């Protein structure tokens, strides 16, 4: 193995560790901010401002018993949480945090990241099936149909940006925004991507597959301990990945004055994540048929229209 490969391996391990911590801090930030929105305190006991709450939660989850239900399919039951979180971690490998700062600057970076987001459906569906629990099964079916519906325009909403840039590479997309962020040229694309991204990360208002009031916890009902934590981790990492993709594609990535590039990237991701938390505090859940109907009847045609207009402008602008 060459020296360069070793460096990449080390960097990948460091990124995974940093992402785990980021997801932990996110859970704390979300609970505090939700508390603020709902006029209560939220976790404030462990450490300053309750900041170490996520460490305490992690220790609790690691030491808890992880008992599969009797009659569960052990192989699929154990594999499902890994399938729910590992692809998202892999998806971060193509994200460009600063000029030249990414694990793998693939020329198909964007499609790779989208593919990794799409793979999470297996974790959820297999987890639901392997648990052999009716609530889990219903949650899994809801998740499958919803992820397929919203996946259909997730990629299409981004193709306008790709057409304007002429590249799938994350770094190229950011450098193409030096003069103007793509959110101003592709407002519809940005809106559709944020909607689809919220659904891909199954955050409220798109969390019908685990809605507590009617499904206990959906596909996670039978999970406990670390396998539950892996599902949770996958969910929070998906939010971070969607925010990172939105930053890269529509909000100029690392570009910004005065501060160093990675700081700008982190700040923008943080602001988008705050928006996701705000959404959760502000919106109710829609009915399931409304949710699926919106994806196929409204969002998908809009994404196609956006692509058509962008294509016409790009082709028309060529000499």
């Amino acid at each position, binding site marked *: 193995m060459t020296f360069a490969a070793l460096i990449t391996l080390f960097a990948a391990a460091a990124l995974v560790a940093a992402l785990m911590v980021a997801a932990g801090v996110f859970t704390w930030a979300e609970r505090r901010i939700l508390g603020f929105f709902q006029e209560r305190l939220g976790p404030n006991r462990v450490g300053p401002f309750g900041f170490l709450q996520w460490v305490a939660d992690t220790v609790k989850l690691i030491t808890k018993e992880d008992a599969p239900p009797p009659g569960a*399919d052990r192989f699929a039951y154990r594999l499902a949480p890994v399938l729910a979180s590992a692809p998202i971690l892999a998806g971060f490998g193509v994200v460009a945090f600063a000029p030249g700062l990414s694990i793998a600057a*693939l020329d198909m970076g964007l499609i790779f990241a989208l593919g990794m987001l799409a*793979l999470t459906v*297996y974790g959820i*569906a297999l987890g639901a099936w*392997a648990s052999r629990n009716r609530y889990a099964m219903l949650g899994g079916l809801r998740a499958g149909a919803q992820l*397929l519906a919203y996946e259909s325009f997730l990629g299409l909403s981004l193709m306008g940006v790709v057409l304007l840039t002429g590249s799938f590479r994350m770094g190229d997309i950011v450098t193409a925004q030096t003069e103007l962020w793509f959110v101003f040229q592709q407002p519809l694309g940005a809106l559709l991507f944020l909607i689809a991204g919220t659904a891909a990360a199954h955050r409220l208002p798109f969390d019908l597959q685990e809605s507590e009031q009617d499904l206990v916890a959906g596909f996670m009902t039978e999970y406990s301990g670390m396998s539950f934590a892996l599902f949770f981790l996958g969910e929070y990492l998906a939010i971070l990945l969607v925010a990172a993709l939105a930053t890269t594609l529509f909000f100029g990535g690392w570009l910004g004055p005065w501060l160093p590039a990675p700081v700008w990237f982190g700040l923008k991701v943080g602001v988008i994540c705050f928006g996701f938390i705000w959404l959760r505090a502000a919106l109710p859940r829609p009915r399931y048929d409304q949710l699926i109907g919106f994806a196929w009847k409204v969002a998908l045609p809009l994404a196609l229209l956006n692509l058509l207009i962008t294509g016409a402008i790009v082709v028309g602008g060529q000499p």
Partner: protein
Amino acid sequence: MSGNFAIWAASLAFLSALVAVTRASVAHVLIWLLAMLLSLAACFFALGASFAGAAQVLIYAGAILAVFVFVVMTVDASPPAQETERARLGKAWIAPALVAVLLLAPLAGLTADPTTPQGRAVPATELGALLFGPWALAVEIASGLLLAALMGARHLGRRGRPEGRR
């Protein structure tokens, strides 16, 4: 380096496919099929066809196989049901195995000339120009197939709906 990696990935894909066809539980088949598709994607990446690799992950693994999930969800996973499945498989594999062996012969002829695969990255724009230039007709025919499938799905979805509801 990348040629060797492609061979490893292809072997992994082959082994996964072999395991997939010998499982009794359909959910396990799904898992191993997924492993096969992802190994094949890795193979494409190693050979420089990164668009094919990424599309393999996004379309085959992310969308087509995901539709199978609905089938898997409706299958009884209890141990007695799996026993029946195993008993039913019994000797049914003999004929397909024979066909596979027969089909292996022409395939082996294709690969009789041992060359090391060479990786050359093909940029997406070049691929697009090729697909919508010399191969435009083939692309359009394929899209016609998809359109037919779409209309078929709509027809199946409409049938049996009570009158008066949209």
